[in-house]
């Protein structure tokens, strides 16, 4: 069973330094927890470039295309000449096309956060560790994957972490 070590820090600088240190030593799959976004942490953890902007662009363009199709399609389905507008009156279609672009883009952005950051997971093994709740209050945590937390690899990992001034190191099981 793969598991990991949970490391607690008192400040964001220590967390950042530890993430850089452990990655330099070759540890991968690090995850950090903090009460606010720590500048530079994504680079320190080696996070890939987010694809959320692309998803939002696609979502927004889908919204644009959908309302254009509905507006133009409705005009073809029930041709009604009104107010001197030609049947294909693109300028009059623009306000709704604009609004649905924004609407679809925003919905995509919100759903992307839920999906990409794995929300809707109301319980996590970390939640069973007393004191972990301070990750949303005032403490900074790092998880380091480690096959055997109490054995040889765990000992080496703890030795590597000792240079980072952790408040404490706790073993955690994986879900």
């Amino acid at each position, binding site marked *: 069973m793969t598991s990991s070590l949970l490391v607690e820090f008192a400040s964001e600088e220590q967390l950042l330094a530890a993430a850089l240190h452990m990655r330099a030593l070759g540890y991968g799959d690090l995850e950090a927890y903090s009460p606010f976004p720590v500048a530079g942490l994504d680079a320190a953890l080696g996070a890939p470039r987010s694809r959320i902007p692309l998803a939002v662009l696609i979502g927004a363009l889908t919204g644009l295309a959908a309302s254009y199709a509905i507006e133009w399609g409705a005009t073809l389905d029930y041709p009604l000449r009104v107010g001197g507008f030609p049947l294909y009156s693109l300028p009059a279609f623009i306000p709704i096309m604009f609004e649905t672009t*924004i609407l679809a883009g925003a919905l995509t952005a919100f759903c992307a956060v839920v999906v990409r950051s794995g929300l809707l997971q109301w319980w996590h093994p970390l939640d069973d560790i007393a004191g972990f709740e301070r990750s949303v*209050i005032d403490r900074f945590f790092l998880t380091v994957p480690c096959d055997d937390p109490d054995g040889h690899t765990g000992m080496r990992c703890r030795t590597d972490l000792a240079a980072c001034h952790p408040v404490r190191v706790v073993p955690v099981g994986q879900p």
Partner: protein
Amino acid sequence: MSMAGQHAADPLLIGTSDDAALTQRVLRPLWSPHPALGWLMIPAALGSLVFITALCYTFVTGIGVWGNNIPVGWAFAITNFVWWIGIGHAGTFISAILYLLQQEWRTSINRIAEAMTLFAVVNAGLFPIAHLGRPWFFYWLAPYPATMELWPQFRSSLTWDVAAISTYGTVSFLFWYLGLLPDLATARDTAPTRLRRRLYGLCALGWRGAASHWRSYRIAYLLLAGLATPLVVSVHSIVSLDFAVAKQPGWHSTIFPPYFVAGAIFSGFAMVLTLVIPLRALLRLQDVITMRHIDNMAKVLLATGSIVAYSYLLEPFTAWYSGDPYERYIQLVGRPAGPFAWVFWLTIVCNVLVPQVLWLRSLRRNLVALLIISLLVQLGMWSERFVIVVTSLQRGALPSSWSSYSPTLIDACLLFGSMSLFLFLFLVFVRFVPFIALSELKLLRRKEPVETQVSP
């Protein structure tokens, strides 16, 4: 940030020793609420009941219970709608535009302003639906393949309005809720009872402050701000097209979109001040919402008020310059000397003269004066919309159809009832939701020099 004149800028955050203390400080109103809020809820709930009763009466009887009749087919309902949706604009302005401009003073007030936006949009949305006459058919406004094979008229500005308001409500909610997630998680993990822990935990969607959470959150928040920025400008522009597209004298003007947007932000900031000043005193938030916030909001009020004043000047000039006799009549005679001349002059006093006193620094820092000014501005903005809606319809292009207008008791109940509903929803929000962006404050604490003394 540069400091104006000889006065040093006030701090944005005062005297917080550490994150744990700040968390406790900001979430305290959730766990040990101020009794005054509960007492205020009673009149607000009773007023909301009046609103619901008046609304039900309207639904059952028909909109004949209102004072409007041809030619004044739009009156209180549309005035209230435009007024409420305008008030909503400050929330998105603060949360989106000031975020993109990296104005850090938005942090303590953005959550309150966003919540205000949501409740204002709820109120705004109810009025046109009630005005439909048969509100149970409101879904006819949506494009769906109906058995009658009919579609909404997409070339009509009223249909644009439906798209604009529903988009605005949805995007405002998403923006507000996304920003709320980290603070709901903090509320979950500091909640004193198991039930509250469960409820806040359910709403927090499993937020743990992981770096992967923050990474997605920050990108999405920035994108939402970018999407909401053109949205906030578009919504009141589209609302103004409800008028500007029509050929009615006093409505058919290209100045309407920018003029409405400026007025919207003007009334919205006035509402933020109306809510924040008593809230700050009641819950002793002087260290989180400092005089710098108040002063900046007063400056926005002055700036947008000046744009509104300029529009008031330009409207009669354009009417005169157009040479159109009906335009000239409504702008130069119908409004300043017609049946509702007193409402017109009330608008001028409240929106043009009153905000100009904010050039004085001492008045921008006088909380009582600011509260009164903010209330007068809202009165003025309601009057402005009333003048636009009612006087133009009263004095149309066919003098034989000119008529008068008087509202009924139901109209008054709906207007004041909607204010009560707004207040009630706001009080519920302040009671149960972390109303100050806590995670953002923790970040701000590290950027801003923190002072220890509390300003008045």
